[in-house]
């Protein structure tokens, strides 16, 4: 076997540590710099330690309305999370057997992960633009007062934005379900069925508790990928921007550590969500074992 304590082992350990440093080091620097004193700039050295830039961020000084973008991102993330869990778990169950169109759907799932995001964003934007034109045309042709007076656009965070993000989160959900069911012991289910349980009851009492920890994983992907999604959302959010979109705009305009403070806050949110998910996962695993 590969000998544990030989030279290669230490080289590998060293290499891995370097990689972890590479992964986390930069983020750590901006967390550090976000506590920069009021006179500090975008780079080291730290001119004192303060929470000045967080207060600045909170006041909204020099930054666009970050508070509402933040709220929008959280709400959208939660909706995407719930839908990702529901749709990918149900599709995952369906995929355990071949069904009409299952190959096409699988192909679409993989294709959706690798289609360039800007292409998808453009496509969805075009689709909703045509939908707008169609609605306006209907309004003027059939003289529908409501449309003529109030209709502006179908493009929006909870229509096109939500859909575009789902094409990114759902594939992860379904692939996780595949991984789960590929390693799933069917005999528990068969036992339940033999004992006369209905399909729903089998799912609720047997399958669901077994896959519950993985569902936490799907939820984690659903929320975090939506919360940070940028490329697919870029053309389809309509009037209100999400946090990543605002952030991208800020990279070219803001020249104070406010942007680091914002980075620290969003990273903190992401880490909290990840922490909670991992805790839930472990708790569910323990409960079962």
């Amino acid at each position: 076997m590969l000998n544990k304590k030989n030279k290669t082992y230490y080289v590998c350990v060293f290499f891995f540590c370097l990689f972890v440093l590479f992964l986390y080091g930069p983020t750590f620097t901006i967390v550090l710099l976000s506590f920069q004193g009021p006179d500090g700039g975008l780079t080291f050295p730290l001119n004192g330690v303060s929470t000045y830039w967080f207060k600045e961020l909170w006041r909204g000084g020099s930054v666009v309305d970050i508070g509402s973008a933040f709220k929008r991102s959280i709400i959208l993330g939660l909706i995407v999370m719930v839908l990702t869990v529901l749709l990918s778990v149900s599709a995952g169950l369906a995929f355990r057997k071949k069904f009409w169109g299952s190959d096409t759907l699988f192909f679409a799932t993989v294709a959706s992960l690798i289609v360039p995001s800007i292409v998808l964003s453009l496509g969805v934007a075009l689709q909703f633009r045509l939908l707008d034109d169609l609605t306006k045309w209907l309004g003027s042709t059939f003289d529908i007062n409501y449309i003529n007076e109030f209709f502006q656009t179908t493009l929006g965070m909870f229509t096109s934005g939500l859909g575009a993000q789902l094409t990114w989160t759902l594939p992860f959900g379904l692939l996780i379900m595949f991984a789960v069911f590929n390693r799933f012991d069917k005999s528990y289910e068969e036992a339940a069925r033999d004992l006369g349980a209905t399909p729903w009851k089998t799912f609720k009492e047997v399958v669901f508790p077994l896959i519950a920890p993985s569902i936490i994983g799907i939820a984690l992907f659903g929320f975090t990928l939506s919360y940070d999604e940028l490329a697919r959302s870029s053309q389809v959010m309509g009037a209100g921007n999400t946090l990543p979109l605002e952030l991208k705009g800020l990279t070219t305009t803001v020249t104070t550590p406010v942007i680091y403070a914002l980075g620290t806050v969003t990273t903190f949110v992401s880490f909290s969500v990840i922490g909670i998910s991992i805790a839930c996962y472990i708790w569910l695993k323990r409960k079962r074992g």
Partner: protein
Amino acid sequence: MMKFLKIKPTVGLLSIPYSLIFIFFFFIPLTLTFIISFWDYNEYSIIPDFIFENYSYIFKDCFNFEKDMCVTFKTYLSTFIFCFVTWFFTLIIGFFVAYFLAFYVNSITWQIVLFLLCTIPFWTSNVIRMISWIPLLGRNGLVNDFLLSTGLADAPQEWLLYSGFSIVLAFVHLYTLFMIVPIFNSMMRIDKSIIEAAYDNGANGLQILWNVIIPLCKPGIVIGSIFVITVVMGDFITIGIMGGQQIPSIGKIIYVEMSYLQLPAAAANAVILLALTLLIIWIMTKMIDIRKEL
């Protein structure tokens, strides 16, 4: 009547909501993009038509070999170079990280912990991870401070940030995970007794790596490569931010055309980008069956 009700509702029906999302937000948008790439447009609107101007405009001057290379070819060439360099580094780093996790970490718990350690950044904001390089690589950044104070350089190095270098660095930083996961997955499926057999027959570590482990990891390597290459092909955000908005990419062209509402032109560019991406994937998937790998 009873008999009719007893027709088993097939489990396949559960895929309907999922399918609807993909029909409405994937198939239809991409089909529309293809159709609209043949439409005409003016400053205000897009006009149904069947013209090839959007395409011929993209390749204007491209086949006149007496002149310099056209913008489109130059942009694709630069994108391909980014793809290749990023692919190379993510593959090397990803492979060795996966190798360490799969073969040198023996306890499952540690494997999970270290694997999570690699995955967690993937769940945080990409933009933040990009701008976090600024205090390190900028004109007054840590790296330049270090170079100046040790006398390794006598002037701040400008190529560290807003350059091809910083773009590749950010890509590697963001997407090495796409290599680690599938390669690690492949490695975990390798029957340890095969390696032992090779060892017993006198193969040394390097030979085992080259003749046993790498061939068996091929599917993981291919899947990881597909992810990395496609994500770089269509990128406009990383190249935009890390290139200081100065370096072109196809994604960026599409983005700019959209902001000027030249939608059919953007659609034509999107179709070409998509076709090229699919061609690359098609060539790569010839080598493996993805579904078996999950």
